[in-house]
């Protein structure tokens, strides 16, 4: 977001918000107003950004509480998957079209 001053325009400038628009590969500057309307738009954008930052940091803090547990759970699942696959392959099963089937002739 920005306040842009232009030649011959008001001293406070014009308020533009930077946002992404579907179909455009880059952020686009959208005119939101000048004077009091611009101030109101700027405060709305600012409060929205502060809320987003608060949500992000709260989510990060919640996720951080289980980082170690998540890591261990991932390792446990990896071992479970590995031993399960080894058991199935050693017992003559093969993975075919999304399911384990008994290999004929084993």
């Amino acid at each position: 977001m920005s306040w842009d001053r232009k030649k011959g325009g008001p001293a406070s400038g014009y308020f533009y918000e930077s946002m992404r628009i579907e179909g455009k590969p880059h952020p686009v500057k959208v005119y939101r107003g000048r004077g009091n309307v611009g101030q109101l738009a700027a405060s709305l954008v600012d409060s929205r950004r502060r809320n987003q930052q608060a949500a992000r940091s709260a989510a990060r803090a919640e996720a951080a509480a289980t980082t170690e547990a998540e890591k261990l759970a991932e390792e446990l699942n990896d071992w479970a998957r590995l031993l399960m696959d080894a058991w199935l392959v050693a017992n003559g099963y093969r993975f075919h079209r999304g399911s384990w089937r008994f290999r004929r002739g084993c």
Partner: protein
Amino acid sequence: MAVKAKPKEGTPAWERSLRENPTFAKEAIRSLTMRAANGEPGASEQLVVWLKDFPEHKSEVKALDDLMAKTEALWANAASFGDKLAEQAARDEAAALRTQLLPPNATILDQILASAVVVAYLAHARAALRAAGTTDIPALQTARERWLSEAQKRLLSALKNWQLIMGKKTRGMRTPLKLFDAAQAAAS
């Protein structure tokens, strides 16, 4: 205390020491499973030989036991949000669930699959409690609902794996493997 010397690289003693390394054993089993699944000649037999050498993998099984216990304890603590009484309740619930999932004479595979279900169950309980809680930040609520959805998927996947093996076991095994033999598992 005398420190055991590292065996020289390339010697038979060095090869034996590699087999005692859980990471090496894991990667060897993974590689052999993939090769056998791709139909490589001899890979299936090598995999069977690897799995038959179960008594040599004592350290690996011990590491797996430790991993299961530590992960379950951490998740019981996480699901109780630091409340000691709730943590004890979560541990009791996990133990009851584990008993229900384990067949008589459970092997290491049965144990690890049951443990994966227990861990996924505790993670789901935590995510469900979080999602049910109130917050004045809508984006945080959205994130909590996403985590709950992920936890549900993981629980479903763990249950499917457990169910798959239990179902296949009822059809019998082609070769009796020590790694998956309950008597051997109990003896180690």
